[in-house]
């Protein structure tokens, strides 16, 4: 067992984990933060996307021990003081989700894309920027619209 200390959604956790524990399993099984999903086991689908020190990463491809001393934000930590993040609002407003399974990862990836490129994003840039996240329900069109809406709000 390896000791680790990290901050998740503003709360500090000190614990011990098996070396092979994936960050996504630690978040889901140990902390009960099940908003982060596991969709493909192969780092393709992006359902497990979280923020690690401010960057969107796929938490199925990060060992929990690699997150030692890091700041983690999951979908549960995105809204502040009961107020949804503008991208969460936009996903709701624009019907950018259907089954909701890819949504947490899609939003976490989308937030970084917005933070990086702000309101200058074209449709094509949004579509390319979200290539690491798969949605099987929407056909992506409403997701692109939601990204634009959040960019200007």
């Amino acid at each position, binding site marked *: 067992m390896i000791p680790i200390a990290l901050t998740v959604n503003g709360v500090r956790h000190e614990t011990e984990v098996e070396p092979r524990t994936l960050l996504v399993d630690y978040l889901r099984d140990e902390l009960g933060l099940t908003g982060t999903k596991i969709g493909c086991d192969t780092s393709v689908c992006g359902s497990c996307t979280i923020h690690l020190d401010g960057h969107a990463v796929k938490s199925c491809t990060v060992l929990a021990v690699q997150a030692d001393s890091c700041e983690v934000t999951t979908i549960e930590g995105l809204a502040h003081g009961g107020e949804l993040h503008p991208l969460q609002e936009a996903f709701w407003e624009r019907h950018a989700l259907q089954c*909701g*399974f890819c949504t947490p990862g899609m939003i976490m990836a989308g937030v970084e894309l917005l933070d990086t490129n702000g309101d200058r994003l074209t449709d094509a840039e949004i579509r390319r920027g979200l290539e690491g996240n798969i949605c099987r329900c929407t056909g992506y069109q409403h997701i692109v619209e939601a990204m634009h809406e959040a960019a200007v709000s």
Partner: protein
Amino acid sequence: MATEVEEKTEGLIGARMKRVEDPGMITGSAKYIDDLKLPGMAHVAILRSPYAHARIRGIDTAKAVAAPGLVAVYTGKDFEHLPPLPCAWQAGGVENFVATPRALEIDHVAFTGAGVAAVVAETKAAAEDALELIEVVWEPLEVVVDVEEAVKESAPQLHEVAERNIVMDWHVGDAEATERALAEADVIVEQRLVNQRLVPTPMDVRGSAASFDPATGEYTVWMTSQCPHIMRLLMTAFVFGIPETKIRCISPRIGGGFGTKIYLYPEYVLMAALAEKLGRPVKWVESRRENYVATTHGRDHVTYLRAGAKRDGTITALDAKTYANLGGVLSTIAPGIPTTLYGRMLSGSYRIPNSHCQVLGVYTNTAMVDAYRGAGRPEATYVIERAVDLIARELDIDPVEVRRRNFIPPDAFPYDPGILRGLKYDTGDYEKALKRALEIVGYDDFRLEQQAARAEGRYLGIGFSTYVEICGAAPSAWIGAVGEGWGAAMWESANVRVHLTGKVVVTTGSMNQGQGHETTVTQVVADELGVAPEDVTVLFGDTQATPFGYGTYASRSVAVGTVAVYHALQRIRQKARRVAAHMLEAAEDDLEWSGAGFAVKGAPDRAKTIQEIAGAAALGYDLPEDTEPYLDDTYYYDPPSCTFPFGTHVAVVEVDAETGEVKLERYVAVDDVGKVINPMIVDGQVQGGITQGIAQALWEGAAYNEDGQLLTSSMMEYAVPKAEFVPKLEVDRTETPTDLNPLGVKGAGETGTIASTPAVVNAVVDALAPLGITHLDMPLTPERVWRAMEGGRHVSATSSSV
């Protein structure tokens, strides 16, 4: 019994209301199967066959049993007392040829991925580790994966019951008349069409958990199911042989199913059986690889098409012989898909006087094939829409014109296509949707642009799909008729309760897999009862808490499920009127619906709101004579017929002359799904469906090698589309209500998938017409297209040099 329909109110029906189910999904609190944690729960991993066809000569579990964290290991022999799973839709007369999976296979496997042993451990990781310690003595057998090979005398026999691996040999239509009409036709087109196997790939994989109470003998089984009531029925009546009261099935939120979550799978039975054996709860959630190898696949038809027409393009005959690959064993409703939902829809939106279809259902050493979004209708639409284009090309008539000449005209509805066993297409105006689509795409201009591009050596193409499909399964007397093989009904249920405070709770036997049913139902309830949407709660997915119902598939949740809710609401309003009349000391006939309750006609201040009426009805202090307390009603709605959405989809493509890459330039869809309750939700359904259908045309395809190994067994190998694969979809609608239900709704969950695939293929073939290419099989990958183009160039070079 039909309800008396009250006067309609305007309001939320037709509004783009934000979904009521979204807050949990955008904040991460929504719970799916893998988020479930039961006290004392053990984890299950399943050992799956690495061979596509083999006998099991022995299984040694000793090393696994000794592994750390292990609870128990079981093999098929431990569950020998449980019969194979039922095949619930034995369409096509398959009852003598049924071979279905068992909880765990005992001595024979017919596809790679069949479960043969189960490890139960304290953690998921420990269970997976121990799988590697189980030693199986396999006797590999000869394998056949190709559906046309499998019916040959020389092919290995998968099951003793099915000679030449044939599950069914089903016919619809008039073979003799069709042959005659083909012989008399001015032109005949013939084509072999491959509708390749797809892996449906919902983002949320399958899973199940179970607990057992030895004191009561009751099981609780959580499962990713689109129809928990059917699961309970099948498990109790056909597997465990216990009363249906002894199993409670709960479907949590499911992250998409697209058909794959309709079926009773071995693992659901296994979890219940393990919970009983161990006396503690167990849970299993499949990996993505398991989802690919062991969950059902879709499509997989090879069709030999012949169509005859007059010189003017009038289609006179259609004949199809289809080999439907059903996999190594039969899934729950597998035989019904290529028969009832395919063969009976083969004439599409056209008046075709003579048609015949033969379907051979075939076992091969591949994963089970069952309904995937559209289920039979995408396959039928592909055949007929390709046929129309082949005829147009043969006669050198515009494909749009050929469609127009053969359309069922608006005054012909209700229209009996003659192959639907008495069902009629309800309503339609096919020309209207086509006209709108042509306007949006700018058809005349496109043909000019195409000519100019061809002159520059560029390959532009346009493709049409003027589809019709069948929704709203189904009238019980039709679907359950003798010989159709469906041993049950297919109505839907809804219970509406207006609580003392005026808050409304709807429970239904239907289920949501992401299509927005809570919202759609809420809109209808809010409108019909004059309550705020936030005062409506819609519940489903738990057999203990909801009336029996048949679930979500075949685009039935609006056309059947929501109509059940609507009728229950009408009866609630009838009772509310009686109670209000008593409260207002007025005659019932003197009251009118105010939009928020009942008021005396001409005296709007003499009124009672629905909340006041509900309160009075719940308290029961002072009710009219012979009136039960409470506003509470359950309605079982059995639709009088099915509904038939239709429309026109148009794809515009450019094929790269150098690489064969297909670029989808534009995609226009004009659908007619009848009345629309929430246009935003319908847009989403259509866009998602189109994307899945385009994906079949261009990218997706399951590939088995000759040993029966699935080569596309992860998302790295199977090409599920990403955001940048698809252009902005131009979605529009016409609205032709059905007259079969008071909401005028038809169903919108599958139109996109059904319509889009042939539109894209037709567009690519149109683009390549200058090279003499008349057909290409899917997926239209750059390599496949490039090879065809090279062949075409070679042919035209040879012929021009002669």
